């Protein structure tokens, strides 16, 4: 499903080349639940951006569903993000002037999927918020907003959900609710890639990628680490 070989990302800051990601190599199959951990500046975000097809690697290969994303045009990448990847962000990133339903509908509209409002409604139902369809994000609580964001991420039935600190702005009880939704989605067969620095949240995953200074220092099952 995800196959990463010697993936590198180098940024140019003035005259200095900064290696944000060095020789990352790993692969995950469909249905994995992975927590990517590490201190800030360790390269988590860079890895997320690459896996989310928001950015292209400097070298190495990234195959998503067998497709090498190297050399793809921005529009082609947008198409892949639209069809195969769902994003969930720490600060929700909902459009403030659109209702919950309209926010969820947006990926369907960009993907030109028919029956968009019906599908958006059923996605909202899956996160248990159907009675809030007409509310704007400002009228929703933090947990509700994140659930709307999850509904938006899954509405196109993607193979992967990328969640970047999804519980970072929530209290621990709401955080648990959100993590339960991810667990449920994972059980339904969606691969969840979770970026977090909270051990507790990482416990929901089955697999951990630990990063430091742009390198993957540990790649193991949670069960193995515990022992």
């Amino acid at each position, binding site marked *: 499903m995800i196959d990463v070989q010697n993936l590198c990302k180098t940024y140019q800051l003035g005259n200095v080349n900064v290696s944000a990601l060095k020789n990352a190599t790993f692969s995950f199959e469909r249905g994995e639940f992975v927590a990517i951990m590490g201190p800030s500046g360790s390269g988590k975000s860079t890895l997320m951006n690459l896996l989310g097809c*928001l950015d292209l690697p400097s070298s190495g290969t990234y195959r998503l569903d067998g497709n090498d994303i190297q050399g793809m045009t921005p*529009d082609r990448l947008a198409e892949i993000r639209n069809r195969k990847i769902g994003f969930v962000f720490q600060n929700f990133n909902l459009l403030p*002037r659109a209702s919950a339903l309209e926010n969820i509908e947006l990926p369907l509209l*960009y993907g030109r999927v028919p029956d968009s409002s019906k599908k958006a409604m059923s996605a909202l139902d899956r996160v248990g918020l159907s009675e809030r369809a007409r509310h704007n994000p400002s009228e929703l609580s933090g947990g509700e907003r994140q659930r709307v964001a999850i509904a938006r991420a899954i509405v196109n039935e993607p193979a992967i959900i990328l969640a970047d600190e999804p519980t970072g702005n929530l209290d621990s009880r709401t955080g648990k609710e959100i993590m339960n939704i991810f667990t449920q989605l994972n059980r339904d067969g969606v691969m969840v890639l979770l970026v977090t620095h909270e051990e507790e949240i990482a416990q929901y995953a089955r697999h951990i990628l630990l990063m430091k200074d742009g390198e993957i220092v540990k790649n193991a099952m949670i069960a193995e680490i515990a022992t």
Partner: protein
Amino acid sequence: MLILDLFKMALRSLIANKLRTFLTTLGIIIGVASVISMIAIGEGAKQQTLSTISKFGTNIISIKPGREKKRHVSGDRVVTLTLEDARAIESGVPLITGVAAQVYKAAQLKYSSKNTNTTVRGTGQDYGRLANFTIDRGRYFNMSEIRTSRQVAVLGATVVKNLFEETNENPVGKTIKVDGKNYLIIGSMEAKGALSWYDPDDQIFIPVTTAQKRLFGMDHVQSIDVQAANIEDLETIKEDIDRLLRLRHNIREDKESDFHVQNSSQWLNSWGDAAKTFTYLLGGVAAISLMVGGIGIMNIMLVSVTERTREIGIRKAIGAKKREILEQFLIESVLMSFLGGGIGILLGLVIAKTVSKMGGWETVVSVESILLAFGFSVGIGIFFGYYPANKAANMNPIDALRYE
């Protein structure tokens, strides 16, 4: 993404910033409104003038005393034209169908207990025909009445109305007093219709000789009108008249004439030139104000793109393509200029209507000016909206998402 969804989103963002949207479109509104109303006023003035000229007749050559370059010299004091000049033209210039010498002055008319002030025009037998007047009742005066300076008068429609409307009498055969002297009414004219600043029906016509000797006490004439048989011959006739009169007035070749010859087509030409200048001027004003309006739109769109960087990032992350972002912002700016154009047209119409109501001024709103103004403003929206929209479309999604 369907165009309708993009349209809805653009509309929503414009509505969310109502005041900003209004202020931004104000430039376009003012530009379009000024174009519409000014063209309407100019066009109205033009048509009014044209109809005046055509009422007077387009194949008429008019000779006035005085040098052409000194038009401000009052015709009354320049006494170079005479009745003999008119006769000489009539007998000596080919290709003409009528000559009418004229003298005119304001005078008071009295009939029984009624008074009115009007213009008394002393003229020849051809004048009624030259000036496109039609006899309503009675007849026009003839050669023998002119030769013998008879005190007869033909009344314009407004004068008839002023003096005879109440009693509903037939004016023909009645006697009126003109500055105290008795004149027999031998005919009345059909109404030609008044213009806002001039009523051709508010005058009476008497034989030119009568006017000169018995009423005004002058032996020159104030104007000679000559009718050409064909409009194509106007220039030839003008040259002939010029040559003839210079000869009669003993003017040496190196000296200027003491009269000037003009015709209504000259008038039309100079009006055409004035109208053209006016149009260029309007075009300039319109272009500048629409340009300023367009820069206003561009400015606000740039602000809007920056403000909504994160939104752009979100849209890109969930699969918006370059083109879809570009279209979204372009639709917004075009919508704004479209709105400005629409309101501007309405405002322009209101201004034009108000001007014609309050100023008694005719205004003509042409469909072309509306289409032009509208097309122009929408074009401005596209032109000035493209750069900000393109800037939004080319944003890097990662940077846009991270934007605070």
